[in-house]
């Protein structure tokens, strides 16, 4: 299974598949093929719960094709718990910035035609 498909299968379960470098221990999203720090190719799978806090976000009102029916919606960058990693994704049900202060707790909950789906916890 391709790295993208593996990541998708985990996201559908509300999890995030990551890759830990077997040489230096640096953690990456699982689409990495070589270590960012040491260039090594050996990784072990680490499955995260996909929880974190909102690092930044936007509420999109002019949407790309396929997303018109969801507007307004948020595109969120989530700072994952206990790691330097961030993950971005789609969050529905957000209409004003007051609905989603930076730092709001959130979690990956799925993957569908909206890409990685993140919901408030």
């Amino acid at each position: 299974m391709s790295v993208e498909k593996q990541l998708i299968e985990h996201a559908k379960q509300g999890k995030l598949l990551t890759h830990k470098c077997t040489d230096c221990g640096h953690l990456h999203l699982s689409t990495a093929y070589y270590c960012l720090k040491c260039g090594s190719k050996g990784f072990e799978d680490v499955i995260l719960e996909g929880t974190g806090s909102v690092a930044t976000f936007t509420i999109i009102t002019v949407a790309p094709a396929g997303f018109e029916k969801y507007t307004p919606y948020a595109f969120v960058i989530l700072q994952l718990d206990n790691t330097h990693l961030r993950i971005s994704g789609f969050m529905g049900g957000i209409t004003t910035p007051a609905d989603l202060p930076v730092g709001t707790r959130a979690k990956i909950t799925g993957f569908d035609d909206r890409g990685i789906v993140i919901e408030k916890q």
Partner: protein
Amino acid sequence: MTLVEKVCVLGAGSTKYGKLPDSIADITTQASVSAIESAGINPKDIKASYISNVFGVADKQVHLGPVLMSRLGIPDKPSLTIESACGSGSVSFREAYVNVAAGFYDCLVVTGVEKVTHTGTEWTTTYFAYCSDFFYEGQAGASFPGLFASMARAYLTEFDATEEDFARVAVKNHENGLLNPKAHIQKKITIDDVMNSPVVASPLKLYDCCPFSDGASSVILCSEKFAKENGGDYIEVIGSGRGGSAAALQGREHLTTIPSTKIAAEAAYKMAGITPKDVDFAEVHDCFTIAEIIDTEDLGFFEKGKGVEAVREGRTRLNSDISINPSGGLKSKGHPIGATGVGQIVEVFDQLTGNAGERTVKDAKIGLTHNFGATGASCAIHIFQSV
């Protein structure tokens, strides 16, 4: 690194930017011919072409190079097309620069072009999102305004800045664009106009965003020997740098800085033997108001978090401390994405050869161009000096 040849820009020309009725092949040729005439050369002097374009498919013409060369009467000369999203123009210029500097060619044409306005806002919003790291960003509904809005939200959170401050960038660039007859949007606007314009992706509003534009820009690049023998005005390329950043915003250490700009700037300043203080004016990649603020910090004109203060104090206006985007920038001049990086060099050529009219930066000797692709995943910077 030893360069065989000093490299000069000998001529420059652009179509008007905006909604253009002519085909992509037509406007590519129009801009190239105006650069050829500006340089005072014949097409037979050109040894090869570098074309920058992203969405030629939208106007039913890819492989633009041979079409241009055929129309110029030099179909036997080689050409290639380069795509690097919104940074295509500067990267194309860089490749041409390298070839002249290395002594492979003594005279080249670099032409950037885009023709997309006939496709409408939904098509452009959708296709431009393909320039993101699509698996993580476009696929989750991120538009380009949305990605820069995410940086804007991070900037508002981290620094002492307001949405009105972003609006000041738009007001300033529209002031400059009013003095540029080739600008797409020649309209004076106020902070209130920006604040009251429809939200596209919060906190960015319509007037925080550059327009989708059609347009073509072209420059003639040559060796110093060729320029001297040809006669006429020319400017010298004294610095060239490129850099990269993680394709997706999520992969960057900071959300309020663009690493590729810093990497490219360091290389370009080093090659030119100058510091940011020596730059008289700069054409920077202001696809959104927040981008210009971040750019001016990453380029070293202002400290991190202080770019917004400089805008508030009017220090980036025409003929102030440092004139940023005297052309009107992407915001007012327009953003035909494949042409933009070349168009910035056209502006520097016009400024440094005394052809910038009312928007002339007084006593300017050194100009810088900064152009990036997508959210700054790729970047090229060039520094020019009057001769």
